[in-house]
Structure formats: C-alpha cells, structure tokens
C-alpha cells in the first residue's frame, strides 16, 4: 500500500491540528474546588423551605414524582420534609407552591458519607441545604460564552 498523496495530507492535517492544540491556550477546565461556578438564580438546586409562609396545603408532597417530599406532623401542623436520597431536582414542588414557601438554592454539589443525613425533616428543611465545605475559600466565577474559547470564566 503506497499511500496516496491525499492520505498523507490528511495525516499531516490531523497531526498539525493536534500540535496546534498543544501550543494554544485553550483549557476549558473549571478547577472545581478552587473555582466555583455561581449558578444562575433560577437553577434548580437543593431546596430551601420557609416555614412561616407554608399553609400546609400538601401540594408539594402530592406533585413530587419521586415521593421525596413527605408531610411530617409538627405540633398541630403538617409540614413538608424532604428526602434528598430520592429527590430528583425537577423543581415541581417549588413551581406548584402557591405561597412561595419553597425556593430554589443554587447548591447542588454535595456528597455524603451516610444515608441518614440526607433526610431533612421540616425544621432542618427550613434551615436550608447544608453549605458545601471547602478547605480554602473558593473563587466565585460566572460562566461567559466566548467566540474563540467556548466557555470563559470570569471572577465576580
């Protein structure tokens, strides 16, 4: 098989393209523990619950597709609590709440060592999701789209 000229050209093109990327500044990586992307306001992350606004209408528990929200009896009221082991972050509960007692937060980067700590009863639920722990204060960045580099990260 004597390679045809076009084959050689295509080999060269592929190698040159590869070489080009070695020398161009183009990294797309969000260095996660050092940089944290500020998700937009409407990001459907973990949910914060305002106990004072809640009217115990049970709509959130009834729409939850994964049966993650359950109504707990607290004193005389029935208040929602969430089970993050099941939550699928569809945000239906927030969207159907007529009193805005549930609200999205943009926290969605948590992991746990045990299963038990992922169930939040109403009182814990109203304290909001736990803040992710960082060893060093991370740099908060926003994502911008860019014509030449795709994604660009800018400090806020």
């Amino acid at each position, binding site marked *: 098989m004597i390679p045809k000229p076009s084959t050689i050209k295509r080999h060269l093109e592929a190698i040159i393209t590869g070489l080009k990327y070695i020398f161009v500044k183009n990294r797309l990586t969000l260095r996660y523990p050092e940089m944290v992307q500020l998700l937009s306001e409407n990001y*459907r992350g973990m949910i914060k619950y305002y106990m004072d606004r809640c009217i115990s209408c049970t709509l959130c528990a009834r729409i939850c*597709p994964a049966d993650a929200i359950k109504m707990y009896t607290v004193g005389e009221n029935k208040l929602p609590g969430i089970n993050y082991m099941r939550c699928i972050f569809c945000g*239906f509960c927030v969207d159907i709440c007529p009193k805005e007692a549930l609200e999205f937060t943009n926290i969605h980067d948590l992991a746990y060592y045990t299963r038990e700590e992922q169930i939040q009863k109403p009182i814990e639920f109203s304290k909001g999701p736990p803040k992710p722990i960082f060893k060093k204060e991370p740099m908060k960045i926003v994502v911008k789209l860019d014509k030449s580099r795709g*994604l660009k990260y800018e400090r806020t």
Partner: protein
Amino acid sequence: MSEDKFMQVLIGPQHPGSGHMRFIVKMDGDIISEFEPDIGYVHRAVEKIAESKRYIQIVPLVERPILADTANINLGYILALERLLGIDAPPRAQYLRTLLAEINRIHSHLYGLGIHGIMIGSSTIFMWCFADREIWIELAQELTGARITYSYMIPGGVRRDLPNGFNEKLSKAIAYMEERLKDYEKIFINNPVVTARLIDVGIIKKDDAIKLGIVGPNLRASGVAYDVRKIEPYCAYPEIDFDIIVRKEGDAYSRVLVRFEEIKQSMKIVKQVVEKIPSGPIINESYLKLIPPKLREKAEQTGIWKMPAIFINLKPRKGEAISRVEAGRGEVTHYIVSDGSPNPYRFRVVTPSFRNLIAFKYTMPGHRLADIPAIYGSLDYFPPSADR
C-alpha cells in the same frame, strides 16, 4: 458444524466497549458468526411505574431513561398528553420547545460522536465532544435551570421564558461551534485511521433498513429520507427551513457524517428560532388564569412561571393517543391509554435505541471482533433508553 470451531465471547456489562449491556458473540476465528445483544441491565420498569403516577409526574419519569436527549422525549410525551387533554401550547411556547429540542439534539449528537470516538480509540474526539457539549448544556441550563434533566415542557406550555441576553450567547456559541467543527473534521472525520476503520463497515442497505425498521440518523444514512419533523411537523417546525441529511452508503462512516451534518442543521434551526420567536404567553390561557394573580405578576417579571394546582389532578378524556417525535437518535413513539382517571391506564414509550437494537443482530455478523465497537458506536445506541 463442530462446537470447537466457534468461540463464544461474552462482552460486557463491565467492559469498556459494551455500555450497559452484554453481547453474546460467537466467533469463527476473528469473524463474528452470530451476535446477540443481551439487554435489560438498565430495565427500570418505566411503563409500570407510570401507571402508578399522575400525568404530570411522568414528565421527569420519561426523561430518566434517555438522559442524553431528555428534551425530545419529554416533548413527545407532552404532545401525546396534549392530544388527550385537547389543549395546545401558545406559539411562543412552541418556539421555545423547538429551541430546547434542537439544543438538546446538538449535545445529544455530540455525545454520540464522542462515544463513537472513544470506541475506536480516539480519546481526543471524546474529550472534545464532551467539552463542546458543555457549551450547549450551559445554554440549556440558562433556559431551564437544570443541566440535562430539563423537565421543561409541561402540558399547555413551558415552564420558563427566554432569559435576557440569550440570543447573544447563542450566536457566540454557534460561532464557536462552527470553528470547532472544522477542527473536528481534521482530527476525526478526515483522519485516515478513522476512514480506514469506518468506511464499508457495518453496512445497512436501504431495503434492510426499512425492513428492520431502524430509525433516526441510522435510517437516513441508509438512504431513506424519513424525518418526523418533515413528515408530521410539530411545534414550530412547519415554519422553519432546514434540510434532511440523507446519505446512500449506509456504512458506519456515513452514519457519523449524517450526525455531523445534523449538528450544523440544528444550529441553523436554532438561529431561525430565536429570530422568529413571537411574543406572548408561554402557557395556555386556560392554565394561566388558574395561577394566583400575585404569582403571575412576579412570573411576568422573572420569566419563571408557576404551575397551577390543577396539574396534580390532570384528567384527560377516555381514549388513547399516539405521538411521534424526532429525537436525536430517531423517532420516539409515545402511546397513552387513558381511562379518565388521573393516572394513565397504560403508558407505552418506544425509544429509538430500542428500535435500533435489531440492527446489531443483523449487521454485526461477518465483521471482525474489532469492528464491534466501531459499529456499536456508529449506531449511537443508548442502552438505558432501550431498556427503559
């Protein structure tokens, strides 16, 4: 034939080239003589669970199996449901649906291309595709608030309006992508090793493609110009100009090329959508008036619409509806049988991957062991969606 002549090789499910399935391969030397896909490793009983769920709760449920292409499968379900409910989405919502569906098609195709790349050994194209996929995911996240499980379309409309400055971002993304696709061509599409691996491998002839009933880009690569977006236009597609990409060869390489060209077509559609999008409400009037006025005012400012409480108890008429939608990997068919209660009586979804499954059995024999990943990748098969 003596048993000794054949060697049975079991590939998967823990295998870098198998995905969530197992291949039972009978080998005659290096040549495959029998190929049987063994699926069901991700069977989660979507159809059974759906019977225990309310109609609105099925929206996230149908998305899960076909995670790489959630918007399209969601759209198909909503279309079927709307047919049963007898309502329609306002024009702006139709355009927004089209927008998300096309953005999703782009990143779904990039996903497929990337997986195909790694299957034949090119880690670079995998990484590139997954990198550029992030740009479209970022855009979709801006629009819907989630990375890939959008749950964006609801009966009678969509959940969120177009955010500010979206058009500008989109045009930047398209400009970037067009540049990048040129590099894709150089390093992958035209790479002599890739062409050597893919050309004339895994040929599905036009007649066979029709007979086996395969769908999507795989069908179009075999020379059948079938695209639900043209055959039975839904959402905003009737008003949008785009081409169906068809190739005659039917081999693995042409399937790659069809997908590659469809990315360009999708970008063309997305451009038109944001130009033509009309103003107006994004949820059907009949649901809109059920939202408390205070929340409605707020939603008009923020663009994040609330759901009316009736969504818990959607009761469609008694009867059945079928809808088809062209998803990234091909035609998705949803079939709902309703008995008038708030839960569906029978919910059936046939995903493109399940219909493409048959292609494995009839294309693989006669090829070499090394061709399995090359053909598998070119079919863009997504096992969870086949198993449901």
